[in-house]
C-alpha cells in the first residue's frame, strides 16, 4: 500500500502541488489531467526525486528524498540521450544498484527475460543511437521493469509508440502489475487509453486531486468540461468502458463530421474498434 500524505511542492515561489492525499493499492492507476497540473511533478515526488513537504509511505515505511533502494521505479517522459551503449547494457543500468563489475548469469537472465517479454530481444545487441524513438521508449520501459519494483511510476510511457505498440505495452504493464502485485501509477493524456486499461483513475487539476475512482465513474461530461474546459460526449462501448468523444464546433471539425456521415461511421464503434488489441 502506497500512502501519500499532505504532499506539497513548489518550484521557488510557484506552488505546483497543494496538500495531496492519496492511497494506492497494487493495481493500475491512471493519473489524468490537463498540461501543467503537476502530474509529472507528483510522480517525481513519489519517486523521491524532488524535495517536497509531506510524506510518502510505502508499506508503513517512509520513502525519503533520493530513495535508491530500488523499490520505486520511475520512468520519465525523456528517454535520455541516445548513446553508443547496447540495449542489453542499457537495460542492465536499470538495476545498477545490485550490479558488480562482472554481470552475473542471473542478472543477464533477468535482463533478457524483460526484453523477451517486451518482444524486443532481437534489439539486445543494437546501440541506443541506432534505434528509433519508439524503440528507445521500449528500452526505457524495459529499464524500469528490470528492477522488479514494488511501485512503478510511468510518465506517458507510450507517447512515441504506434497504436499497436501502445496496446501491447499497456497489456504488458497490466499483466506485470497483476502478476507481481505492483502499485502502478501512469500519467496519461489519452483518456480512452486510460479508460481501457486503468483499474482506477485519478484526475488532477491545478495541483490538487479533483477526483478519483473507477473509470466509468470518473469520465463524465461534467468532469471533462470542468477540468479540461472541453465539451465532450461520453459513450459506453461494447465492453462497457467509457469512450470520450470531444464535441467539435469549428469548421475543420464540421468537415470531418460530414465525412463520417457519408461513411456511416458511428463514433463510439469506431473508437471501440480501434482500441481492441
Amino acid at each position, binding site marked *: 500500500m502506497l500512502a501519500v500524505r499532505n504532499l506539497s511542492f513548489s518550484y521557488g515561489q510557484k506552488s505546483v502541488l497543494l496538500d495531496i492525499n492519496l492511497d494506492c493499492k497494487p493495481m493500475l492507476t491512471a493519473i489524468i489531467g490537463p498540461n501543467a497540473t503537476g502530474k509529472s511533478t507528483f510522480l517525481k515526488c513519489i519517486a523521491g*526525486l524532488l524535495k517536497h513537504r509531506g510524506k510518502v509511505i510505502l508499506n508503513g515505511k517512509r520513502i525519503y528524498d*533520493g530513495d535508491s533502494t530500488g523499490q520505486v521505479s520511475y*520512468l520519465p517522459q525523456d528517454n*535520455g540521450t541516445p*548513446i*553508443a551503449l547496447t540495449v542489453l*547494457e542499457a537495460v542492465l543500468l*536499470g538495476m545498477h544498484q545490485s550490479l558488480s*563489475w562482472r554481470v552475473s548469469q542471473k542478472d543477464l537472465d533477468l535482463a533478457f527475460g524483460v526484453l523477451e517479454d517486451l518482444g524486443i530481444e532481437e534489439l539486445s545487441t543494437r546501440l541506443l543511437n541506432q534505434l528509433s524513438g519508439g524503440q528507445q521508449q521500449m528500452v526505457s520501459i524495459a529499464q524500469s521493469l528490470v528492477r522488479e519494483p514494488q511501485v512503478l511510476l510511468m510518465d506517458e510511457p507510450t507517447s512515441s509508440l504506434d497504436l499497436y505498440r501502445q496496446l501491447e505495452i499497456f497489456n504488458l504493464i497490466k499483466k506485470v502489475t497483476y502478476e507481481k502485485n505492483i502499485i502502478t501509477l501512469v500519467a496519461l493524456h489519452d483518456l480512452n487509453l486510460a479508460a481501457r486499461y486503468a483499474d482506477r483513475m485519478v484526475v488532477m487539476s491545478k495541483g490538487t486531486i479533483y477526483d478519483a475512482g473507477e473509470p466509468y465513474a470518473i469520465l463524465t461530461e461534467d468532469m471533462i468540461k470542468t477540468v479540461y474546459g472541453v465539451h465532450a460526449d461520453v459513450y459506453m462501448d461494447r465492453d462497457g468502458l467509457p469512450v470520450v468523444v470531444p464535441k467539435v464546433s469549428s469548421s475543420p471539425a464540421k468537415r470531418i463530421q460530414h465525412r463520417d456521415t457519408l461513411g456511416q461511421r458511428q463514433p463510439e464503434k469506431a473508437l471501440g474498434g480501434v482500441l481492441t488489441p
Partner: protein
Amino acid sequence: MSRDAYDRITRRKIVYLIVVIGAMILTFFIDIMTGPAWLSMKEVIQAIFWPGQSDPMVEGIVWIIRLPVAFMAISVGAALGVAGAEMQTILGNPLASPYTLGISGAAGFGAALAMVLGVGAVPYAQEFLVPLNAFIFSLITCMTIYMLARGRKKNQTETIILVGIALLFLFNAFLALLQYMASENELQAVVFWLFGSLMKATWPKLAIVTVVLILLIPLFARDAWKLTALRLGDSKAQSLGIDVRKLRLRVFVGISLITATAVCFVGTIGFVGLVAPHISRMLVGEDQRFFLPLSALSGALLLSAASVGSKMIIPGSIFPIGIITSFIGVPFFLALILTRKEGHW
C-alpha cells in the same frame, strides 16, 4: 541467439583491450630503444631483466635515462586518458578534456611564477618548486570550480564549464603578463615548459604520478555503472536512483587530482586527453567497464607512440612531446572519425 551475439560483442571488447595492451608494451620497448644512441631490442631486454650481465653503459642509458621517461609516457598518457574520459562523461560534452577547465592554464601560471619570479607556493622545496607550484595552482582552480558548482541545484554542468573557461582566460592573462615581464632565458624556460616534455622524468616523479593514478582509478571503477547512466542525461540518471550532483562533484575531484599531478611534472601535453576517450568510445561504446580501462590504455599507447615519434623526427634530437601528440594524433583521429558510419557522440 541474442545471447550468443551479446557474448560475441563482449569478447570483441576484451580483444580490443588485449590488442591495445600489446601495442602499448611494444611501443614501450621501442621507446626505450630509440634515442641519440640506438639500442637493440635484445640489449634493452637484457638490461631490464638481467641487470649486471650487460654493458654498464647500456644499463645506465636504460635505467637512468630511458626507463623513467618510457614509464612516464605510459603513466601520464593513462592519467590524461582517464581524466579526459571522465571529464567528457560528467560534462556530457565531446569537446571536454582534462585541460578544458583552466587546469592547464593554472598549472602554466604556477610553473611560470616559479621560473620567472622564483616564487613558490611551498617554501624549502627548490627541486620541486616548479611542479609544486603548477600542482597547487591547478588544485586552486579545481577547488574554486568545485565550491561554486557545489551550491548550484540547477545547471551544475553549465556552471562548471563556464567558471572553468573564465578561469582559463584569467590564468592565461596572468601567464601572458609573466611572459611579458620575463627575461629572455626565463621566457624560454616558460615556453619550453608549456610545450610539455617527458625529459625531466625521474623515478620519484614517476612514482607520484603512478600512485595517484592507482589510488584514484578504483574510485572511478566503483562508479562505473553510475557513470554510464550519467551519459544518458541527468534526468534519466536521476530516475535510475543516482544522485548526479554528488557523483559529478566526486568524479570532478578525482579528475582534478589526476590531471594536476600529471601536468605538474610534464607540462601541458594536449590532445591525448581529448582523443583517447573518443577512440575508446568508437571501439567499445559507452559501457564504462570497458570504456574506462580502454581510455587509460589508449592514452598510454598514444603518448608512448608520441614519445617514440619525438625522438625519430630528427635523429639525435628530442622534440617536445606536446608538439608530437597532435602531429600523430590528429591524422589518426580524423581517419577514425571519417571511416565510421555511426555517430558516437
